[in-house]
């Protein structure tokens, strides 16, 4: 068996969605029939999702990629001696030389797709727990300073400096503090959290443990959306493994620190991505947004000081601790330091995960990486930052991906999701959907959001029917929702609406022409 060849077939949910399990079993069967010893490793995804299922073979030159592989291709792959990297129409060469992958700066995602996500040995062999080991030799204040110096800002969307949040919790006096991971990745066009949890779950566990050590919290919760059943299973198994190996429990990593974790499932409410609503949900209640202050950092889960951070923020902490704040801050531009895991999605030829330093332009992502639309039709609009993000036309594509640069164009970076639309999109319908989504997902606490979203749908229906004078009402309503909503749900719903009206005015003036044509 010493000659068995390592084959990687992803277990990432996106890869499974296009048949990775069937490919893995076809390879196992074919190898058995041919008397060929192989070891099939179920890794995370490399993030080149249009190539999934992407099968890799380990050779002395490095890992060679084949994709997208279907079960029908497996026999011909063996005929072509793919186990030695043989020539085949699906042979993509060395995985790490594929331009989409090669030109990235992978820090948070360094191990995703590379290792077996549930092998602790693999994790440690690739630098795992180096950050936590450093942290347990440092004071809490020194850890918090390191995070602050890295310039890391909350990757959930708001971009609040992580170090400041941690410092507040560190300074709070309490008998119990909590670390809560916001894994309620509900924005359409985003999947970085999911890919990381499925592809390198120990990184998240390590990041949360470091946060616990830093601020004196002994208990953590991962609040995971129920739409991610695969990530749930992976996290449960990873936590069990980490606990058995004493990386979680009463003395983590042989130190005097205690830290343990639980995963909790959400139940299909988008609002739970808002941190105070998430805390209400964790406490077992309706997820109604809380007024701030008090800040969750002082009165959070069960009224105790709580760090609430996004998956990406927490999963980046181990890299920062292991490599130093400066090494991280050396990436990026302006006040956006480090890297951003960008998710390229929607109507795009080459969609997937692209981790790059802040500052890359939207155009470079969708043209150089994405290769244009999936349909082959002309590009028309790009929505950046999820359902509360702006729709941008071609003329704004030279905007760099940076918190401030996006804000200056009345958009937002959000969680780094980019959804591409071709020229069949009707931006009036998209604007209507923004209101409809808000009406469905509003927690109902504040009037501008609860009532405003419903009035927005009704008014947009009139605009679409040809009453364009009602656009003045939409404008007025949007101002009110922006100024008076309690949280970002109602406060940012106007962003997609107003950007659609501003940049695509023709779509809001079509109805009379339609009627004339009839």
């Amino acid at each position, binding site marked *: 068996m010493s000659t068995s060849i390592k084959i990687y077939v992803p277990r990432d949910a996106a890869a499974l*969605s296009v048949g990775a399990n069937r490919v893995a079993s076809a390879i196992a069967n074919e190898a058995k029939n041919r008397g060929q010893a192989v070891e099939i490793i179920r890794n995370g995804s490399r993030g080149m999702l249009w190539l999934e299922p992407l099968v890799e073979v380990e050779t002395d030159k490095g890992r060679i990629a084949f994709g997208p592989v279907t079960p029908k291709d497996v026999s011909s792959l063996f005929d072509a001696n793919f186990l030695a990297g043989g020539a085949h129409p699906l042979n993509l060469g060395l995985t790490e030389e594929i331009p989409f992958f090669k030109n990235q700066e992978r820090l948070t995602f360094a191990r995703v797709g590379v290792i077996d996500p549930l092998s602790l040995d693999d994790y440690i062999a690739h630098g795992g727990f180096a950050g936590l080991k450093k942290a347990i030799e440092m004071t809490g204040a020194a850890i918090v300073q390191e995070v602050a110096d890295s310039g890391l800002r909350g990757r959930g969307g708001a971009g609040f400096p992580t170090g400041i949040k941690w410092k507040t919790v560190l300074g709070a006096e309490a008998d119990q503090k909590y670390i809560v991971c916001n894994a309620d990745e509900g924005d359409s066009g985003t999947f970085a959290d999911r890919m990381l949890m499925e592809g390198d779950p120990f990184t998240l566990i390590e990041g949360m443990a470091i946060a616990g050590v830093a601020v004196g919290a002994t208990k953590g919760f991962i609040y995971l959306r129920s739409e991610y059943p695969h990530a749930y299973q992976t996290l449960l198994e990873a936590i069990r493994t980490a606990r058995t190996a004493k990386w979680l429990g009463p003395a983590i990593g042989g130190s005097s620190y205690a830290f343990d974790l639980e995963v909790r499932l959400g139940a299909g409410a988008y609002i739970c991505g808002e941190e105070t609503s998430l805390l209400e949900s964790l406490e077992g209640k309706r997820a109604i947004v809380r007024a701030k202050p008090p800040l969750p950092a002082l009165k959070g889960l069960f009224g105790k000081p709580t760090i609430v951070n996004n998956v990406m923020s927490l999963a980046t902490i181990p890299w920062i601790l292991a490599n130093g704040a400066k090494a991280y801050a050396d990436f990026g531009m302006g006040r956006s330091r480090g890297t951003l895991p960008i998710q390229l999605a929607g109507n795009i030829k080459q969609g997937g995960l692209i981790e790059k330093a802040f500052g890359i332009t939207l155009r470079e992502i969708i043209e150089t990486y994405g290769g244009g639309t999936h349909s082959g039709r002309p590009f028309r609009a790009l929505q950046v930052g999820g359902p509360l993000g702006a729709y941008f036309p071609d003329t704004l594509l030279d905007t760099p991906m940076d918190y401030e640069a996006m804000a200056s164009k009345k958009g937002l970076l959000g969680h780094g999701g980019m*959804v591409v639309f071709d020229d069949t999109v009707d931006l009036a319908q998209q604007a209507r959907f923004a209101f409809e989504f808000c009406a469905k997902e509003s927690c109902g606490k504040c009037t501008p959001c609860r009532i405003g979203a419903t009035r927005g749908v009704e008014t947009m229906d009139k605009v679409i029917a040809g009453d364009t004078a009602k656009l003045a009402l939409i404008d007025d309503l949007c101002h009110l929702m922006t100024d008076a909503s309690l949280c970002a749900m109602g406060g940012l719903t106007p962003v997609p609406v107003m950007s659609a009206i501003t940049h695509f005015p023709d779509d809001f003036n079509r109805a009379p022409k339609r009627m004339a044509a009839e």
Partner: protein
Amino acid sequence: MGWDDAVASSIVNEYKHLSGATLPILHALQENFGYVDKRAVPLIADALNMSKSEIYGAITFYHDFRHEPAGETVVKLCRAEACQSMGCERLVAHLKDVHGVEMNATTKDGRLTVETVYCLGNCALGPAALINGELVGRVDEDLLDAVCKGQSHERMAG
């Protein structure tokens, strides 16, 4: 399996020690019975020392919890922006026009439930759906035809 108060009580007891146990209990009940019967409300309220209105409020707040059993096959079809850009609304129209299947309802024969979800995290391979818990990408009319006819389709197998 029909609702059974004794079984439900034992499920509630299994989870009630957790802090903030409401959602774990509701998920476990739905996992077991396929829905959360209204008779669960007093059981949970008693066990957690919460009011019945708080428990009823929680059950009705979250989209996941069903008030009646679903069909044998459950399709959760994503209708968020990334899947819209790939034509998910065309699929919704196809289900209705060709198969008479309405969204967020169960067919009269009890075989099929199709529900709207907003994002399954498969946004680069849309339109996406969860079919009986299996994530499927690049969903098309062909696949939905098989689902509606109760036929197996190789793409539903992971």
